[in-house]
């Protein structure tokens, strides 16, 4: 995480990307507030998904290139914990700004007041899942020169449930319906991926380094 702060401009890229993508939608679809409000959950979440995947490529990239990753493997520390720590650090750097910035997006997309808090909660619960599942994909593609393009193909199908549940929560909140069950599902997904994904990511890294 400290390493990431050495290049502060790069830190801004996922956030700027998110802003640009979301701002394209009103331009492409038209500024009608009702329409924007209807598509807002999907747009914000898809943009967050894209921003995550774009930033994910950097998760192990520099460590792989300068050999730090190999040192991690032979250091004797459990690789699972190291990947988990790297992923958490990545989430703090790449996804937390997205969550903090999301109220601005909600205003842009004319998202109803009721679902703004829910949006932040879905992002807070959902983006760690994206990072965790993504860490498996990054582990598999890190040794490739153009891993980033392949990465999106690998992880987007796995992101489908999160996208569905998160947008459903926001839509339910907009319509004044109960949404706690969706947040519960997201939390379940978070716990599941928190327990399983680091192992898979560590295995993937070992394969990539073999």
């Amino acid at each position: 995480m400290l390493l990431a702060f050495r290049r502060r401009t790069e830190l801004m890229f996922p956030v700027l990307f998110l802003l640009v993508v979301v701002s394209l939608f009103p331009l492409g679809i038209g500024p009608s507030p009702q329409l924007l409000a209807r598509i807002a959950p999907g747009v914000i979440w898809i943009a967050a998904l894209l921003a995550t995947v774009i930033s994910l490529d950097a998760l192990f990239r520099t460590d792989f290139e300068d050999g730090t990753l190999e040192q991690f493997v032979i250091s004797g520390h459990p690789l699972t914990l190291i990947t988990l720590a790297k992923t958490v650090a990545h989430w703090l750097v790449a996804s937390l700004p997205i969550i903090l910035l999301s109220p601005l997006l909600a205003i842009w997309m004319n998202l109803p007041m009721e679902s703004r808090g829910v949006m932040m909660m879905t992002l807070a619960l959902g983006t760690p899942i994206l990072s965790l599942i993504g860490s498996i994909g990054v582990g598999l593609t890190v040794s490739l020169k153009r891993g980033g393009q392949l990465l999106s193909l690998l992880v987007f199908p796995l992101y489908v449930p999160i996208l569905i549940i998160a947008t459903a929560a926001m839509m339910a909140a907009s319509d004044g319906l109960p949404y706690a069950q969706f947040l519960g599902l997201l939390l379940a997904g978070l716990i599941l991926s928190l327990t399983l994904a680091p192992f898979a990511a560590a295995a993937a890294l070992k394969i990539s380094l073999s």
Partner: protein
Amino acid sequence: MNMKTSRKTKPRKNPLLMFIHKMGSPPWFYQFSGKLIPWFWLIFAVLATWALYLGLFKAPADYLQGESVRIMYLHVPAAWMSMLIYSLMAVMGFIALVWRIRMMEILAIASAPIGAAFTIVTLASGSLWGRPTWGTYWVWDARLTSELVLLFLYLGVIGLYKSIDEPRKAARAACLLAIVGAVNLPIIHFSVKWWNTLHQGSSISLLGGSSIDASMLWPLLIMAVATKFYYGANLLTRARVSLLEQDKRKSWVREAIMEQD
């Protein structure tokens, strides 16, 4: 001395274990699969012809769907296969990763293109069936959507395998991805299903509710068996080819090729 021999011969006592052990060896696999493949193709051809005859000529047209119901005799077995092959691929990938069996890596990877082809057949035949029946080529129905996601998963496995140069490393990476996908697949399936009920209210079920007549069931089942043999034949052929390709510098390949000439 006595102990030594008994320890040595112990694993041979179980013929099944011995068989599995032998199949792990490339020359053995190559020979054995060479004998199996023609039979698989033959059984597939016979069964598929029979099923098509029953399905296209014998079975009656559906009173609701008309003649287009005959697409189902291809569509449903293909859909079954698309899911079966993914789970088999994940199982084989798991075996390959845990016990580091090279043949299993090859078999798992060889499954991916076949499964992807079945998925495409499912999607294409489903679209063609949907045009006259639902009035559109594509709806975001739960089944269609999860089949599409399944196709993406297959393409991810194939893409990952193709983009890593070293074949064994590529196979292991792709196997791991297949396992991750298999863990996610039920979640994806149910979330898509649920998403569909959320957004569309009612979904059209394929053979829903009504019991299916024997004259329509038989071609379906025979075709389902035929596709298994198609998979077997195709899988073994693919595995043999990639085995030859990977081992082209080894002596057993030279011997095997010399034998054929």
